[in-house]
């Protein structure tokens, strides 16, 4: 799975060399960001149900979407937020890529699911992250970068 460390090791293995100083620098750089990432992951884990409910209300209150899809939409938003929690922990987009994004276009197209609801929900969550009420600036940056990544993948 793609994370900060495994990316380095994959490159070293492809070249058949031992980890060298620039590899160590890359690993160190990812560990330097780890505290912020883990703070974001921890806050998200603690508030995931509230964040989901909040985003869901914002999306469905306009009456643009069929209310019968509400539960399924909640489940999916929760699912993506959980994958973002994982990405924050590993420091790479591996969990989202492998478990959330691979094949997602095909699934949505086949089932006729409008992705705009999800995009609205994640954009709403992105706009609602408040520094320093929710988390530190750096943690919020890491979290928002991953929300953007999901939004891009769904657009």
């Amino acid at each position, binding site marked *: 799975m793609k994370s900060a460390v495994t990316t380095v090791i994959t490159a070293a293995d492809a070249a058949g060399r031992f*980890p060298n100083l620039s590899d160590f620098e890359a690993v160190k750089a990812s560990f330097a960001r*780890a505290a912020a990432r883990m703070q974001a992951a921890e806050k998200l*884990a603690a508030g995931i149900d509230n964040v989901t409910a909040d985003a869901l209300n914002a999306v469905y209150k306009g009456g643009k979407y069929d209310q019968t899809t509400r539960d399924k939409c909640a489940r999916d938003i929760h699912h993506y937020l*959980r994958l973002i929690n994982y990405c924050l922990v590993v420091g790479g987009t591996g*969990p989202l890529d492998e478990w959330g994004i691979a094949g997602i276009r095909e699934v949505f197209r086949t089932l006729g699911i409008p992705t705009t609801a999800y995009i609205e929900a994640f954009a709403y969550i992105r706009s609602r992250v408040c520094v320093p009420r929710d988390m530190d600036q750096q943690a919020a940056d890491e979290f928002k970068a991953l929300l953007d990544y999901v939004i891009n993948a769904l657009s």
Partner: protein
Amino acid sequence: MLDAFSRAVVSADAKGVCLGSAELAALRRHVADANIRIDATNAISQNISCIAADAVSGMVCENAGMTQPGGNCYPTRRMAACLRDGEIILRYVSYALLAGDPSVLDDRCLNGLKETYLALGVPIKSAVRAVTIMKAATVAIITDTNSGPSAFKDVSGKGSDCKGIAAEAASYFDRVISSLS
């Protein structure tokens, strides 16, 4: 391939839950010890031939018939293959140590290694002996208790800081040994 972080993520995903404070506490300790881990991996990277080539030489010295006609390290082509294998195993151990998880060693090195050695007629006992010497040398270099050049020259107390990580490195060599035997 997994590292300590993705290992935690995979087990959380199996349960369908987020990683909360409890799981993150263990990972935060991992982050706090990152420099020790990097120093230990660096100690291996800087002593490759001291660990790998010497281990294979040591194995041959204990069994001098190996380099004679009819021995498993005769002719030099086979000795070269043996030296190369020692280095490859050490390389995957160094990856596992850096990642903090043995999956890279299992997936990319040990999977099928025993079968390959049996098919090629490599004596498993001697291979295990070479890995055992590599393990001892690696632990000595990481903890700075070796008699040769110091990995942490002029840095006081560095070797003793690395005792815990040396035990982890030893466990990866044990993994190689148990998968071969």
